[in-house]
């Protein structure tokens, strides 16, 4: 890339150093360092309010950092926002589209704003219409679209000018499992076939696990872990033993479990403890015996391979899945299946014993 000389980081699509953004006294983003390689899908994972969207807004030139420096596609986001803008595509949360226009008109407007010539515009819109893949609805007003159709048009619009880096801010929040799986396929295809670097924020662990080459976990405005999903999970240990316990038994159980041979780490949660170990099948028996000897009686013991939620738990001391458990329960109660795991190929972090 010709821009590489400006940053001295030829293979980096995004780099950030000490990025800070404060709103009043609140530090929404508190010293974020990032390095995203060209051509990778980078997952930015964290709960609501962790600082994901604020980081994206800074990288997209819509918000100035209070401190720190960031460059995207080889250009500084503060000193050369115009250079950054023509090289990035952005699909912000909520698929913001003008309801009075048709999908095709949205794409046309977008192409004109980037100065595409008439010929390029026609070709790009045709490609984008294919990408959106919503059939004849592309010529219907946006207000008639479903959430999934809006996302597809929004995604197609963000790619109209052939960006090098694509920012997707929670691209599947609120989508049904089928639409979510479609967006995932599309993101993979864009990355694989067109080489677009994707920076994706998500609050879904399975999404980061399924899509991202590398993941940063952000909590309280700080990156707490960074690496490939498999590296991060390996760091937790080969296996995880989840012990579901009554609240009063959690603290003593953690102490007892810590004394069991070959237990690498014990983390307390709200519903029990999580034990990291190299050999879950062998250790689970010892844990059960030790707890029983101490007069502690787990509701269940489950051995499984680690998930990103376990990584999150080790890094922050709490589970991401516990944060939105009320939302999940609500979804389950209404049958809306907001977080249905059918679309998630990877193991999710929810304990099997949860009622």
């Amino acid at each position, binding site marked *: 890339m010709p821009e590489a000389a400006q940053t001295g980081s030829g293979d980096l699509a995004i780099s950030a150093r000490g990025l800070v953004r404060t709103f009043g006294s609140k530090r929404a983003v508190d010293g974020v360092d990032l390095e995203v390689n060209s051509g990778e899908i980078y997952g930015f994972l964290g709960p609501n309010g962790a600082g994901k969207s604020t980081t994206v807004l800074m990288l997209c030139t819509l918000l100035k950092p209070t401190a720190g420096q960031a460059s995207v596609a080889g250009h500084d986001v503060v000193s050369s926002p115009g250079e950054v803008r023509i090289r990035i595509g952005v699909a*912000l949360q909520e698929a913001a589209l003008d309801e009075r226009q048709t999908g095709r008109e949205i794409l046309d*407007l*977008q192409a004109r*704003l980037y100065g595409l010539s008439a010929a390029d515009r026609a070709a790009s819109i045709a490609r984008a219409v294919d990408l959106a893949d919503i059939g004849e609805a592309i010529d219907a007003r946006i207000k008639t679209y479903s959430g999934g159709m809006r996302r597809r048009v929004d995604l197609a619009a963000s790619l109209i000018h052939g960006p090098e880096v694509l920012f997707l801010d929670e691209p599947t929040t609120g989508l049904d499992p089928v639409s979510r799986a479609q967006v995932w396929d599309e993101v993979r295809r864009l990355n694989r076939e067109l080489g677009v670097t994707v920076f994706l924020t998500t609050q879904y662990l399975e999404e980061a696990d399924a899509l991202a080459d590398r993941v940063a976990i952000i909590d309280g405005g700080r990156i707490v872990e960074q690496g490939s999903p498999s590296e991060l999970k390996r760091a937790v240990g080969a296996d995880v033993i989840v012990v579901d316990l009554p609240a009063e038994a959690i603290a003593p159980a953690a102490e007892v479990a810590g004394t069991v041979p070959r237990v690498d780490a014990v983390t307390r949660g709200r519903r029990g403890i999580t034990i990291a170990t190299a050999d879950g099948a062998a250790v689970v028996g010892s844990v059960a015996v030790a707890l029983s000897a101490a007069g502690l009686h787990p509701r269940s013991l489950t051995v499984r391979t680690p998930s990103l939620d376990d990584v999150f738990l080790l890094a922050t001391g709490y589970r991401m899945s516990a944060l939105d458990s009320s939302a999940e329960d609500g979804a389950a109660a209404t049958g809306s299946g907001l977080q249905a795991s059918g679309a998630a190929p990877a193991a999710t972090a929810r304990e099997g014993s949860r009622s």
Partner: protein
Amino acid sequence: MSVQVSASGAPGGGMVRPVGIVTDIATVARRSVRSLLREPEAMAPALIIPTFFFIVNIGALESFVERTPGIDYRAFQIPVAIIFAVTGISRASVLVIDIQTGYLSRMLVTPVRRSTLLVGMMVADIVLAAALSLVVIAMGFVFGVRFGTGLLGILVFLALAVAWSLSFTGFPYTVALRTGNPAAVNSSFLIFFPFAFLTPAYVPRDLMTGWMQTVAAWNPVTYLLEAMRSLLSEGWDASSLGKGIAAIAGLGAVTFTMAFRSLARRVATG
């Protein structure tokens, strides 16, 4: 993953070109005019209110005011009808929805010149103001109103109406950009009342009571009405026209300064 990325490796790589300001304005205006044409029902109040007041005012006051020699009350009321039609119309209600839905942000991540986001909407305002004014002028013709200054007079009359309308749009745009709140934008219509009614809308200034005369003397709409009326009944009157144009320019300078400052604040990245 080791996919080779270059500017031309992306789907439309290398297509992006610098865009002139006129192209940006045309792009934004195209969208605004299109959405305007898609909601003709939104124009209804802007036509019903002036028609209603025109007929009621003539019915109530024509014979009374025409006791003063030299006043053609129907011609006297046509500029009032125009003011009622075009004052306060704007795309601010669309802008505030753009802010709320995030569509404004979607446009801000493109290289579009920020000022053209407002100017483009104002182009649609000009189109609407001209269309409404033409309808009111046509209504005047139906009621027997004629222009003493001929076709050129009609064109200047139209230009004054549109320029006035545009200068007033700065208010709702300012409210939209400052608050991002649709209810506040709707309420900004209230500012229309003092501007429209604390004027010689019903009777000439010399027939008004003292305090009202003083207030009207400070209201730019007074000079606008008098300039427009001069085109209808007095022929070319440079003094009236000059004051009318100055009133529009003065108000426009204030409201545009507010609106574009508010835009700058809204799109500021700090």
